[in-house]
């Protein structure tokens, strides 16, 4: 019996999963023709996706050595940096990746705004995008506490106090965030659970909807001036 060819293997899988339809819809779709800086602006969403994937992978690796407890958090983070092979590098990627993620998401939002890509029929994509932005900020806020050093502790003290200034509900919100009247052991476990369980779940669902809508509507053309002149191809 001869070995099956690549084409035969592909057809066998395709008949049973229909993956070519999905592949074509996602990767063979038509996108606007653009060049120069305008073309680059279209890459910002994908760039955010890439850094997010990097955060998920490096975050999972960090979680293998991190302990979310007030007496071990600080030392476990030191340990990652000093005693785990490539630990400092992995942590560095996650640390700088967190800031870069915010930069990219803001840049992506700016391109959508400046090109008017949020207009009909893409309002839903924009609204889900706003939620994605808030989740990314949530990742940054909760992750910042985890090293449990002076900077982390006081930044969170300030952050939860700001939440506490909200009229009427502020006091309750601050207590719910801190897991009690004062910052302490439950604050760290709460932030950890939000950072590695709740927010990844939420961002997964939101990203799914966001990308579905992107593919469903197709990518918008760059804006052109009235009368057809100007624009990126003008």
């Amino acid at each position, binding site marked *: 019996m001869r070995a099956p060819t690549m084409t035969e293997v592909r057809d066998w899988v395709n008949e049973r999963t229909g993956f070519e339809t999905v592949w074509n819809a996602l990767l063979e779709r038509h996108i606007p023709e653009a060049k120069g800086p305008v073309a680059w602006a279209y890459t910002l969403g994908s760039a955010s996706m890439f850094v997010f994937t990097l955060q998920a992978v490096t975050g999972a690796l960090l979680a293998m050595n991190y302990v979310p407890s*007030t007496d071990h958090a600080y030392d476990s983070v030191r340990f990652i940096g000093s005693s785990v092979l490539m630990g400092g590098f992995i942590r560095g990627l996650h640390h700088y990746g967190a800031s870069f993620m915010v930069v990219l998401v803001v840049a992506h939002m700016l391109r959508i705004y400046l090109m008017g890509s949020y207009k009909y029929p893409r309002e839903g994509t924009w609204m889900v995008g706003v939620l994605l932005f808030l989740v990314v900020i949530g990742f940054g806020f909760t992750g910042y506490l985890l090293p449990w050093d002076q900077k982390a502790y006081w930044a969170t003290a300030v952050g939860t106090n700001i939440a506490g200034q909200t009229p009427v509900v502020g006091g309750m919100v601050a207590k719910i965030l801190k897991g*009690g009247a*004062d910052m*302490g*052991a*439950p604050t760290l476990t709460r932030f950890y659970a939000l950072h590695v369980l709740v927010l990844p779940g939420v961002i997964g669902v939101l990203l799914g909807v966001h990308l579905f809508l992107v593919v469903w509507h197709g990518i918008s053309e760059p804006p052109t001036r009235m009368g057809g002149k100007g624009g990126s191809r003008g």
Partner: protein
Amino acid sequence: MPNDEACVREEAAGGVSRRTFLTAGIVVLGGAISALLGATGLSYFISPAFKKDEEDWVDIGRASDMKPGAPLKVDFVARKRDAWVVTEKRSSAWVSTDGKEFTVFDPRCTHLGCPYRWDQAREQFLCPCHAAVFDAKGQVVSGPPPRPLDRFAAKVVEGRLLIQPQAIKGAA
């Protein structure tokens, strides 16, 4: 929407079709289950908002050991609970009594927090840092402190003197 023949016939006859009935059942039961689970999870999540945060009472000795006259400096170990973490801190307090009531002072001067001492000859508390003087009731006699000595809540339970080492500001 129920749209096959049996449904249409049953509904035309003024009844509830099997499909409508089952749909309503799923919505009602599913709603009840979601509401129950949702309320349970939500109350777990927001419970810190309703938790009372009270300093534990600390047993600092037999009440009958504290005699009227000179205030007594008592050393004790205060346990502070932070959820499942308990930290112990060495601490002290000045206890004075008239035989019935107990007054317990925070051992830190209300000026800048130095530990003051009792001067038996003058019957006054003296602070070494900036020469503050307080009387036996904790009132400022002279010096820079902005308020009388802070106090700790105290009570006697079964002959033991219990205090709450949390300053009650400027209580006179």
